[in-house]
């Protein structure tokens, strides 16, 4: 299959950390992208955030050089997704919000259009309840930053259809990503393992047994974790991390997923990690 189907037009919904990164990736691979967000502030910031991440991707040599970048349009409502060959949902990790957004997107695009959710942990089967044609729905867990990590986790729900399974391959090939398919369930593979570990790392800090720097240094330099769990938490966004943990806790009852009090306190104070300039670390003049 060609990885050069650059005429594909994609709609990305949610212009946050992940939506702007996925939009940058798609534009960098030559696709026409419509980026949709309900927040005026997010829409206003979106073009600069996408441009900044495109530059980062270029600098890291992470984009093909054989094609011009695609165009980016920013929109405020789901009907702007009509006509897209695939839609990628990346709104806040709130299962009700996601269900409403996916239902709206399914109505805007009609049956047979690939619907992708970038959820960190809501089972695809559960999200499938919200749409009239669950066979069109697939989970693709893009990693952060989406334009630098070439591998993604793909979740085919029990009701995902063959056509959608094929379309998602085409989509990922056109974005230069390699999909690894896993079974459905809360947190799939990556969030189930990673979020539990990060939450525990935060607990160690709360207990006063180690500083964030120490935990990260040990995990990086002894265990080989590239970034360290607390720097990863800041990269993810502490609000999203707390939401994702809550989703996992609600669906598994596993107390390891109950968001650490320290995490919740930071979110309450508006210390959301890189995106707010401060989390477990300080990011002076942090760039979103």
């Amino acid at each position: 299959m060609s990885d050069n189907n650059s005429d594909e037009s994609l709609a990305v919904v949610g212009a946050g950390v992940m939506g702007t990164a996925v939009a940058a990736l798609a534009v960098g691979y030559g696709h026409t992208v419509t980026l949709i967000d309900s927040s005026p502030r997010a829409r206003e910031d979106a073009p600069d955030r996408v441009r900044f991440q495109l530059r980062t991707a270029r600098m890291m040599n992470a984009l093909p050089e054989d094609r011009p970048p695609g165009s980016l349009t920013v929109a405020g409502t789901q009907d702007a997704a009509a006509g897209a060959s695939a839609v990628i949902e990346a709104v806040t990790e709130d299962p009700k919000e996601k269900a409403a957004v996916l239902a709206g997107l399914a109505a805007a695009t009609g049956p047979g259009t690939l619907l992708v959710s970038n959820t960190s942990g809501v089972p695809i089967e559960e999200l499938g309840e919200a749409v009239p044609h669950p066979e069109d729905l697939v989970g693709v867990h893009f990693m952060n930053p989406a334009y630098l990590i070439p591998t993604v986790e793909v979740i085919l729900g029990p009701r995902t259809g063959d056509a959608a399974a094929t379309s998602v391959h085409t989509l990922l090939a056109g974005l230069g990503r390699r999909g690894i398919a896993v079974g459905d369930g809360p947190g799939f593979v990556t969030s189930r393992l990673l979020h539990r570990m990060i939450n525990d790392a935060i607990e160690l800090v709360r207990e006063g047994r180690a500083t964030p720097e120490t935990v990260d240094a040990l995990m990086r330099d002894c265990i080989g974790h590239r970034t360290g769990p607390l720097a990863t938490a800041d990269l993810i966004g502490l609000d999203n991390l707390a939401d994702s943990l809550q989703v996992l806790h609600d669906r598994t009852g596993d107390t390891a997923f109950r968001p650490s009090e320290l995490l919740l306190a930071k979110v309450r104070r508006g210390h959301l990690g890189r995106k707010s300039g401060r989390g477990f670390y300080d990011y002076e003049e942090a760039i979103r």
Partner: protein
Amino acid sequence: MTTPSGRTDAAHTAGPLPSDEDVAAELLDFLAQRTRTRWEPDQDLFAVGGMSSLFAMQLVVHLEQTYQIAISGADLMLDNFRTVEAMVRLVNKLRSPAPGSTGE
């Protein structure tokens, strides 16, 4: 256009633009402050255990704003930001004296 600063210290006798030594010193300061680590001019900032791609972009923005240059196309590659020496070369290559400034 006026010169970027009214500084007249000896290092600036060659004109209104800071010398390579000034740029290097400024960058080493910037790095020390941001990373709370001291770096050597020829040290690879992105070697194992070093800085992230996000930090690399902070360097890009810092250079663009501080030296009023635009870094794009083939210049926008990590190798140009790997060391302070490489960044000094890049700044030197991209900046040109502000029009009308004669070096008083």
